[in-house]
């Protein structure tokens, strides 16, 4: 199936507090960042405005983020369907 990409990223930082992550997210054009309660150093970087979906990865944003020395891993988030029951 055609993949759908959102502007949400899972970002793993080498270290850093929520505030550092928030600052880093702002620097890279995100709305903010939220720490995940599991895993090590995992943060949800989410967009500021309406969640957009796109058929292509946002390679530029991904690459810039991945290059940042504070960042350990970057995982763009695919979009998929969920339905109410």
């Amino acid at each position, binding site marked *: 199936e055609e993949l759908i990409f*959102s502007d949400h990223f*899972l970002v793993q930082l080498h270290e850093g507090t929520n505030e550092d992550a928030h600052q880093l997210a702002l620097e890279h054009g995100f709305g903010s960042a*939220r720490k995940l309660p599991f895993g090590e150093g995992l943060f949800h970087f989410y967009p500021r405005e309406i969640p957009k979906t796109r058929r292509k990865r946002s390679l530029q944003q991904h690459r810039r983020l991945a290059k940042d020395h504070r960042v350990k891993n970057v995982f763009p988030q*695919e979009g998929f*369907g969920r339905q109410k*029951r």
Partner: protein
Amino acid sequence: GYREINNIDVNMSDPLFTKQWYLINTGQADGTPGLDLNVAEAWNLGFTGKGVTIAIMDDGIDYLHPDLASNYNAEASFDFSSNDPYPYPRYTDDWFNSINRVTSRVLLLFPCSQSCHFTGIRMLDQPFMTDIIEASSISHMPQVIDIYSASWGPTDDGKTVDGPRELTLQAMADGVNKGRGGKGSIYVWASGDGGSYDDCNCDGYASSMWTISINSAINDGRTALYDESCSSTLASTFSNGRKRNPEAGVATTDLYGNCTLRHSGTSAAAPEAAGVFALALEANPNLTWRDLQHLTVLTSKRNKLHDEVHQWRRNGVGLEFNHLFGYGVLDAGGMVKLAREWKTVPERFHCVAGSVQEIDKIQSGSKLVLSVTADACQGKDNFVRYLEHVQAVITVNASRRGDLNINMTSPMGTKSILLSRRPRDDDAKVGFDKWPFMTTHTWGEDPRGAWLLEVGFQGEAPQSGVLKEWTLMLHGTQSAPYIDQVVRDYQSKLAMSKKEELEEELDEAVERSLKSLLSKS
């Protein structure tokens, strides 16, 4: 509106109370008297959900509603769709909204457990879901939230095979291992609305061992038209969905404070079940996530539930089950009585009991029958003796996936439909790739012996396919899970199961002593 419990029968002054027939069914709207969640018995015993917190994962909650406001736990609520702590239902900036009587779900759980707290987790309200939003939702404050109720899932179009992604799986694993101080978060899932066109084993949330998948019946015990059958459903509660008579609907309040008798599919099932489980957790806060599943199996009742297609059957240790309703309708009274004296079940183990890896062709008109003779890892540290969940991890491709039909039979003769025909699924490419089909029907059985897998096609046109893998995974305890439980009702499933266990243990003890005598002589 709170009344003293002991006069609940006499002066329930709320004129609409009787519309909530799933609480006390006296035959309203052609319903079947006595077919309800038996919450009155739990209330009479004084359990109303005190000290328990339930999270409703949906697209918002009207926490300002007069019936809800006093039970709302704002601190443990969050909106992952809009990234703020106020999960109130709303139109999104681009007017995208999928509100569907969201309030109804919360109010459904309230009648069952008036004193519990609830939190709102708004996470469905964006055009597409992401793994990170799901994972964040089901791992939200797991030391505060006891039960997570979900009335959503992969699209129930009868041709989707989907489930939790990696992060969400990790979050669930974390939840059952560390949530509620290590006793395990409770995940309740509405089993699906695809009706006879779908099979809820193709929904990775409903068919997960870590979730309690709940189906719904209607007020006279028949199935709702949108019910899906599958072997991973553990029990049922109620919903509407078959009768024209609106009174047969599940009465709730809509966003405008009006009583509504309409809502969609199995959505009512999960929050009703969450409400019943809250009563059980109040009766025994030490219940683990596995304890609750055992209690569900032992106390759910067949009652008047019936379905023409799927007959009620008994498994190898006498537990009655049905492919639609699981072990029956939840019985809140029975559950809290057993929960009060419940001793946590022994640790469970996991055994890969066998695997068939060679390529086998499947043709229309004949069945591929495979067998694995399992010793259930006997003699090893991880042997399993009393089953809980069984998974059949299968890799299969077919010219038409929807025409595949897979059955598995346990050594004690219990046959489970792992996959029923899905007429709308015309996939010829993806198939099932290491898909963990799960059954709860062999609960309590001895897994040692020959397991049979039957794969065939059902449909008009001839099809062909290839089965590449079947791996059998057994999950269960090594010692009898009910031997320490106190039996109060000698007609109950617990009494029957315990008797089975004692007989089995006795047989094995006799066998062992005979062997030792023989070896001495």
